[in-house]
Structures are given as structure tokens and as C-alpha cells.
């Protein structure tokens, strides 16, 4: 709607910005003053007349300098009684009454609770009642004694001595929210109760509106009015105590009482983690001070403060030996129930005391007891220490415990003294049962070793008892399991050992009168008394037997089960017998048996039959041997017969009829007339300088054994083995007319040609079987017979051997001799592949 007004040309040029422009008529229509009727005005006046004037604005940030410059404190009239402490019986709290300590504080107070500026205006009565000025304002009262609040409590004094600048001193004075109750004039008010009283006493007698303006000097109540606000100011705040001079006869709240409450309020809160002892009043002034008695709560507070200030024992540090736990160092004097303080400190100490380690033994002499709960009746915490120091003296386990125990055992030959009182020399049951290896047992001494019962003394880890020690063991003590020490009757060992794993001390067995010497029985000695029949068989020492005695609540049944008489008796191993053998009858009773020591040292007769030494009758043994031999022979015979029957049909079927389409292998007779085949007319005579045809020239194929003799030797060694996989049924002659014509057959005629083909076929077989040397030899024979095919085969054999040069030369020779063969292209290709050309 903002438009730019364009002035007419006649008007001076001025740029105006119009907003919500209205025309002249509209402007003129609304041009009038506010219309107010007379009735409304009258009502307004009436309403404003009834409404009390609002308090002046509160200046919170009031500086001290400004206040001091404006208003010096007025001089109270001389002769005015001050500090008239008159405590009356406080009005009982009603169920609906608010908590007197729930009053607004400076923190949560509103603007109306802010401290008023006291301009040192003298009230009408002549006595300023309250001043909410800081303490600095009243530092120099003119011509009058100042009532200092330090007359009651030093704690309060110390706190009020340094109020912060601008600290509002009035707390409840300006908050009289309720006007309902109007106490009678002159009703004394007590501090503790009047802390919450302003609501009820907001309107004093006479109808003077004192609420919210009690501190206002302009509204000072007249004489005779109870100065409630001033009292409460002091009572609650306890920070400032203005040199108020109440008029004569005006009850003024006791400063002491106020300070006492204040002290309570400002007392350090008790630690939450601490539980005060029963009956200790902690910041709860339920007891109303009467008769000007200083607040008990202050002392209680002090006691609590002592708790706070008491140095807490370090939690992770064990108090030194003999140090009483949390002994109160200072006892508040003056009727303070020291018991409470002690209790509190004791409790705190107990709470802060570190838990006793479960596996660690505290030092000797340290009163370690169960951290009982709050001691009742003021019992010192020290009383809670359980267990005498003497009994816990040996709770530490030395490192060389086993050795020490052994030495102690050996060095304790002194017999038991029966005259000695039993409880004194008897080890408590758990420790006695533990004897040596228990980690919690006291260090075994000579006396304890002597007093050890027989059941606990010998252990698998302990040395064997000597004669003296064995003598010291009374037979009656063998049943072991002495009664538990009364001091440790209700205490369980901290180490829990499974009772099922270890043999315990016998309790039921003891009750039943069963002696259990086997588990702990010492080794038999010469001087030992005859043992009961149960222990005639020495039992094997069971491991961990002594450790099991740690458990004082072990099961008694183990003791009964422990002495197994078959401990050392070897278990008869069931030997599987193949066949029952007759056992010779035992010798007659009258026949003397000559005992002979067996391998295990036992005395057994030679004819005695045992599981491991079974005597076999000698008459049957040769029979078994013969039978076995005959069986073996029979087996051989059977095998031989089976092989004969197996070969018989094979031989019979051989000449029957060949399988059609399949050529069975036929044994090729070795060419005995190789020399005849390798005649010069059958094949071109290899020249002596031909490396292919002359085998001796080839170093790789030179074999004196296989070198075919050129002349003079009619016999040529033939190959001995023939690869069975390679069918050797091939004859040198080409049976199929479809194949390539055999150059060997063409080159050889008659029997020579057949022999050459046979040799060539043998060479192929060797070549296919991987026998390149044999193939070369065969091919040489073919060449010697005058066939050119031998050079081809010889080239292939050399190529398979890797002799490229000879392979190429043989191939070239073949191509040279048979240039029209079908396989010449392939041969030339191979020559090229071998790098010949």
C-alpha cells in the first residue's frame, strides 16, 4: 500500500512517502478526541481509588555507594530496649499449614521480594523497624549500639560478616501472600515458626496493611504493631541485622534463634551417601528450641560438619595394623551427643572402609571384622571387629609352604603332651584338617604339628612320618576330623573347594565311629602300633587328599569310600583267549609248592595258572604246529591247482577260433636270419660315411650289445620284451590293400621282403612303445635288408629321441631314395619343422 506520492506541479518538489493514505473526508471524520462518558470516568475513578498504590519500582542493581551516599542510618532513640528475646510457645503446625522452610528464597523470589531501598526514613513511631540495607550501611550506627548478630553463633556471624554487595537481606518480608490470619496485637512470634508465619501474620492487628510493604519506610506500622517483617527478615535471611529499634514492648524475634535456624539452613548438607545414625538430627529442626537454649541443631550441624570434614579413609588402602577405624579426632563439646558423632564417623568409616579382600589376607593384627551394619546403640565400630588378632595371625601362606611344612613335620618329633589343655594346643578344625597344604592354615609349628591328628598329618605331599612322629600320633586320633573350633563355627573358609572332588574329613564317619585311616594313614613304620584290619592293605596315596580337608563341611561319605583296599591290587586285564585251553589241575594240598619269584616279585608257584601266565599243555603244541604247517602246504597246493585249472582253458581256447574283427597277439618269432635279410641286395648298402645307415657313427645309438654286426656274426640279439599294449600281430606284409604300399615290401622280395617287414614292424612297435633305441636298431636292420622304409622309421626314432640332426639326415635320405612316396610331403614338412630346410 505504500505508494509514492506524486506532488502536483504547483507544489514544491518534495518526495513524500505515504502510507495508507486516506482522503480528507475520512480524515476529518475521525478527527476527534477520545470520548469518555462521565459514568465511565466515575467508575474508573472509583476503581482507581480502591486499588492500593503499587509499590515503587524495584532497583535490583543497587550499588552500595549510592545507598550510602543517600541515607545514613538513623539514630535509634535512646533507651529503646533492643534484642528482647521473648520466645513463646510456638504455634503448632496444622496439617494444612505450609512448611515453614518452604518459603521463597532469594533465588526464586520475584520482583516483589527484591530488597527495598531503605532511604533511612524514620517511621512514624520513631523507630526504624527493619532495614534491608546491606551490612555496610549499618556499619556505623550513629549514637547507638548496634545489635550485632554475632552474639549467638559464631557460624552465623562468620557467614553474615561478609555478605555480598547488594545481597537482598529481606526474603520473607515482602511476600505476605495471605491476609487471612490476623494475629492479635502483640502476639509474640518465634523465629522458627515465624519463618512461615508471614503468610498468616500479613495483616497485623489494627488492619494495617503490612503485606509487602513491611520494609517500606513509608508504611511503617504504628507503635504496637508486631514487627513481623523485620523479625522474619532476620530469621530467614540471617544475613543482615539492621539496627532496628522496635518500640517499647514490641516483641522482636530473637536473633539467636534466627541465626540458629540460619545456621541450620546454611549448614553443609550431609553427604547423601552417608546414612546418619538413628536419632541423629540432621538439618531437621523438629525440636523447637525453648528457653533460649541454643539450637541443638547447630551442634548437630557441627557434628555433621565434622562428618564432612572428617578425612575419609582411603578406600583402596587398608588401614594399618592396629589402627582403630575412624576414630573421632574431635568431639564437639557442650552437650553434643558425642555418641552421635562417633556413630556417624564410625559409620562413615565403615562405609568408606575398603571391603576386605577375599583372597588376600590382611596383615596380622589388623582388626578385620565383618563390616556389620550400623552399630546400634552407639556401639563403636571397633566393636564390630570379629576375630582376635591371635587367631588370624597365621593366615598368610608362605611361599615355601610345602618345604616349611615338610621341615616342620620332620622337626617335630616331640610327642604330644597330654597334660596340655586341649583347646590351647589343638588347632581349629578347619586348619587342623588342612594341616600342611591349606593356603589358609597357619604356618605349621612344632606344636601344631604335634597336635595334628593322625588323619590330617600324613599327606601325599608331606614327608613320611618318622618313628617318633608316628609314635606321637595317638591311635585315638586316627579317626581324625576334630571338632571345629568354636570361634570359627560360623565362619566358612573363603576358599571354596568342591567337596566332591576331595576326600573330606569325616564327620559322619566320626559320628558313626568309623575310623578312616586309609586316606591319611601314614606309611607303616616299625614302631607303629598294629593297625586296624582296614588298613592292612596299604592304600595308594590319593592326590589332593589333604587339600580336601580344607572344607570343613565336606561330605563324610568320601572318607568311607576312600580306603579302597584294591588300590594297589592290579586290575586283572581281561585277556581275550582264542580258545579255551585246559588248565592243569592245581597241585594237591599235600604237595609242597616251591615258591619262585615271578617277574613282579610275587611268590607264585610255577604251576599256578594266572591270567598273564597261562601254562599251555605241552602235548598240544606240536599238534598245532603240525596242523599249521599242513594247512600252509594245502594252501599252496590249492593255489597251484587253481592256477593250473585257470591256464588250461586258456591254452585250449587259443587255437580254437580267432575273434572276428580282432587280431589276437601272435608271438612273432625272432628273426634269426637277420643277416640274411640285411643283405646288400635287399637294401642299398649303406656307405661307411653315411651317418644314418652306419649305427656306430651315431654316438647316441651306439650300443655294443645291440650293434648289428656287419659281417661274420650270424646271430643278432632280438628284443626281449614286447610291450603288451602294443599289438604285435603285425606282419611285415601289408594285408590291407587300401593302405599305402609298403616300401619295405616293395624293396624286398621273397623271404627277404618278409623279413624286412617283420623287422620294420618290430621297429614300429618299439617306437610306439617309446623305445626309441630299440626302434632304431630295428630300423637299421630293415635298412640293412635293403628297404628304404628303414630311413623313415629311423628319422622318426631319432626325432623322438631329440636327435634332430640324425632325424633330418634320415628323412632326407628317405626322400632321396623314395621321392615318389605318398608321405614325402609329410616327411619334408617334418624336415622343415626340425629346421633342416
Amino acid at each position, binding site marked *: 500500500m505504500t505508494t509514492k506520492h506524486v506532488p502536483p506541479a504547483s507544489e514544491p518538489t518534495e518526495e513524500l512517502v505515504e502510507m495508507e493514505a486516506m482522503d480528507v473526508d475520512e480524515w476529518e471524520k475521525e478527527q476527534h478526541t477520545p470520548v469518555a462518558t462521565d459514568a465511565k470516568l466515575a467508575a474508573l475513578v472509583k476503581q482507581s481509588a480502591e486499588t492500593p498504590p503499587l509499590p515503587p519500582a524495584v532497583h535490583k542493581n543497587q550499588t552500595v555507594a549510592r545507598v550510602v551516599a543517600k541515607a545514613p542510618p538513623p539514630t535509634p532513640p535512646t533507651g529503646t530496649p533492643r534484642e528482647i528475646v521473648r520466645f513463646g510457645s510456638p504455634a503448632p503446625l496444622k496439617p494444612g499449614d505450609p512448611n515453614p522452610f518452604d518459603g521463597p528464597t532469594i533465588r526464586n523470589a520475584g520482583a516483589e521480594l527484591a530488597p527495598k531501598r531503605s532511604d533511612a526514613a524514620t517511621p512514624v513511631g520513631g523507630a526504624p523497624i527493619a532495614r534491608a540495607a546491606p551490612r555496610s550501611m549499618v556499619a556505623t550506627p550513629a549514637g547507638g549500639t548496634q545489635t550485632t548478630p554475632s552474639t549467638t553463633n559464631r557460624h552465623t556471624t562468620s557467614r553474615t560478616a561478609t555478605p555480598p554487595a547488594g545481597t537482598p537481606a529481606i526474603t520473607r518480608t515482602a511476600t505476605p501472600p495471605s491476609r487471612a490470619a490476623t494475629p492479635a496485637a502483640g502476639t509474640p512470634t518465634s523465629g522458627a515458626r515465624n519463618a512461615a508465619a508471614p503468610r498468616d501474620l500479613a495483616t497485623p492487628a489494627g488492619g494495617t496493611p503490612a503485606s509487602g510493604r513491611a520494609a517500606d519506610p513509608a508504611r511503617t506500622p504504628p507503635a504496637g504493631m508486631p514487627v513481623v517483617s523485620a523479625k522474619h527478615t532476620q530469621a530467614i535471611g540471617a544475613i543482615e541485622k539492621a539496627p532496628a529499634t522496635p518500640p517499647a514492648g514490641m516483641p522482636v524475634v530473637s536473633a539467636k534463634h534466627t541465626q540458629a535456624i540460619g545456621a541450620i539452613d546454611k549448614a553443609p548438607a550431609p553427604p547423601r551417601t552417608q546414612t546418619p545414625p538413628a536419632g541423629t538430627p540432621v538439618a531437621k529442626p523438629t525440636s523447637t528450641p525453648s528457653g533460649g537454649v541454643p539450637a541443638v541443631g547447630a551442634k548437630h550441624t557441627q557434628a555433621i560438619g565434622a562428618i564432612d570434614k572428617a578425612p575419609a579413609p582411603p578406600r583402596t588402602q587398608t588401614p594399618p595394623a592396629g589402627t582403630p577405624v575412624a576414630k573421632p579426632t574431635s568431639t564437639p563439646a557442650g552437650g553434643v551427643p558425642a555418641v552421635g558423632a562417633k556413630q556417624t564417623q564410625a559409620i562413615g568409616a565403615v562405609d568408606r572402609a575398603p571391603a576386605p579382600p577375599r583372597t588376600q589376607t590382611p596383615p596380622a593384627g589388623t582388626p578385620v571384622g565383618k563390616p556389620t551394619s550400623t552399630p546400634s546403640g552407639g556401639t563403636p565400630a571397633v566393636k564390630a571387629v570379629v576375630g582376635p588378632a591371635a587367631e588370624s595371625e597365621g593366615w598368610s601362606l608362605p611361599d615355601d609352604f610345602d618345604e616349611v611344612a615338610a621341615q616342620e613335620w620332620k622337626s617335630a618329633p616331640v610327642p604330644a603332651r597330654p597334660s596340655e589343655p586341649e583347646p590351647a594346643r589343638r588347632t581349629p578344625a578347619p586348619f587342623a584338617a588342612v594341616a600342611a597344604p591349606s593356603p589358609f592354615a597357619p604356618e605349621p609349628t612344632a606344636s601344631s604339628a604335634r597336635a595334628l591328628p593322625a588323619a590330617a598329618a600324613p599327606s601325599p605331599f608331606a614327608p613320611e612320618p618318622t618313628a617318633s612322629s608316628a609314635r606321637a600320633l595317638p591311635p585315638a586320633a586316627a579317626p581324625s576330623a576334630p571338632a571345629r573350633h568354636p570361634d570359627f563355627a560360623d565362619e566358612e573358609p573363603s576358599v571354596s573347594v568342591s567337596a566332591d572332588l576331595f576326600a573330606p574329613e569325616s564327620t559322619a564317619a566320626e559320628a558313626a565311629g568309623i575310623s578312616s585311616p586309609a586316606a591319611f594313614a601314614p606309611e607303616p613304620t616299625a614302631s607303629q602300633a598294629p593297625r586296624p584290619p582296614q588298613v592292612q592293605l596299604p592304600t595308594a596315596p590319593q592326590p589332593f587328599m589333604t587339600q580336601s580337608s580344607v572344607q570343613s563341611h565336606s561330605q563324610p561319605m568320601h572318607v568311607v569310600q576312600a580306603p579302597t583296599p584294591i588300590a594297589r591290587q592290579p586290575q586283572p586285564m581281561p585277556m581275550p583267549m582264542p580258545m579255551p585251553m585246559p588248565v592243569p589241575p592245581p597241585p594237591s594240598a599235600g604237595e609242597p609248592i616251591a615258591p619262585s619269584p615271578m617277574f613282579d616279585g610275587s611268590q607264585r608257584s610255577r604251576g599256578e595258572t594266572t591270567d598273564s601266565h597261562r601254562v599251555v599243555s605241552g602235548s598240544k603244541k606240536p599238534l598245532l604246529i603240525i596242523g599249521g604247517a599242513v594247512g600252509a602246504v594245502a594252501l599252496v597246493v*590249492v593255489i597251484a*591247482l587253481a592256477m593250473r585249472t585257470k591256464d588250461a582253458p586258456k591254452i585250449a581256447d587259443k587255437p580254437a577260433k580267432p575273434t572276428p574283427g580282432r*587280431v589276437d597277439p601272435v608271438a612273432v618269432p625272432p628273426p634269426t636270419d637277420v643277416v640274411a635279410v640285411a643283405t646288400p641286395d635287399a637294401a642299398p648298402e649303406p656307405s661307411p660315411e653315411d651317418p644314418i645307415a652306419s649305427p656306430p657313427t651315431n654316438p647316441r645309438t651306439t650300443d655294443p650289445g645291440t650293434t648289428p654286426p656287419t659281417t661274420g656274426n650270424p646271430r643278432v640279439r632280438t628284443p626281449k620284451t614286447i610291450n603288451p599294449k602294443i599289438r604285435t600281430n603285425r606282419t611285415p606284409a601289408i594285408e590291407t590293400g587300401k593302405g*599305402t604300399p609298403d616300401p619295405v615290401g616293395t624293396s624286398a622280395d621273397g623271404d627277404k621282403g618278409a623279413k624286412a617287414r617283420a623287422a620294420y614292424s618290430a621297429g614300429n612297435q618299439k617306437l*610306439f612303445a617309446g623305445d626309441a633305441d630299440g626302434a632304431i636298431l630295428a630300423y637299421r636292420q630293415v635298412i640293412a635288408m635293403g628297404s628304404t622304409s628303414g630311413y623313415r622309421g629311423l628319422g*622318426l626314432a631319432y626325432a623322438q629321441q631329440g636327435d634332430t640332426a640324425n632325424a633330418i639326415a634320415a628323412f632326407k635320405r628317405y626322400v632321396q631314395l623314395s621321392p615318389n612316396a605318398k608321405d614325402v610331403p609329410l616327411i619334408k614338412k617334418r624336415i622343415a619343422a626340425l629346421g633342416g630346410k
Partner: protein
Amino acid sequence: MFRSTLLIGLVGCIPASTVPPTAPTAAKRTFVVVPAESDTFPLAARATTERLRRARLRGFNEPDISKVSLEVVQLSIECVEPTVACYERVGKELAASQMLFAEIVRGPKRDSVKVTITLFDVDAKVRKRAVAKVFASEDDVPFGVADVVAEATKP
């Protein structure tokens, strides 16, 4: 003693006399693999031979690997034509009933290689299966010849 020995001897003779005559066993059927050989494509030939060695044929044991190639056999028997007759002769020379061999030749394209795997039944004188595959290059043969062999030997 004599009696027991006689008894045992008689007992031992019983099985020998009761052994039934064994029936004539059938001829062993042999599966022979002929290694591939190629001077032009040695890598392809080597890869193909490796795969042929792993070939298995249903109803036969592990193949017998021939010591020589097909061409060597053909040259040796002087039957170099790629015909059934020549293959039959080759098979018989190798004493094989089933023969598996490969032929590696140049492909239709440049650098291409054609690999042909043939399963030849020597007894039936029939080429049972022939699978050929052209590879783009020789380097591709090792990665694909296995499929060709598997295809040729699958039942």
C-alpha cells in the same frame, strides 16, 4: 600223525578239485589318447594334449597315453590319409578300442585355430564323435579346449 596229515591233505585238496573252470574273459577294452602335435601351433597342441590326458570315457578305465602322435603312427604304418581305414589301422597299432585324438589346423581367419577332437571307435571302425571349434587365436585354446574335449567324450 599220519592220519591227521592225511586228513589235512584231503581237506586241502577239496577246494582244488572243486574250482570251477573259469570262463574265458572278454578282451580288454582300451581307451587310448593320442597326443596332439602341431608345429604351427605348439601352444595349442600342448594345451590340447593336457586336456586330452584328463579325458575320461564311460565304461573305460583311465586312458592310455600314446607315446607318439597320430602323424608319427601314420607315417610309420605308411597310412597318412585322414580316413577311417587309416584311423582304424592306427587304432589297431595302438591296441586301442577307443581312440581319442586331436587335429589342430589353421582356422578360416587369420591367427585362428581350428581344433578338432575325435573319438574313434576302433572296433566299430566308426568315428563316434568329432567336435571342432575354431579359436580366434592360439592363446584362446587353453581356455576353451576343455569344453571341446568334454563334448567329445560325453556319453
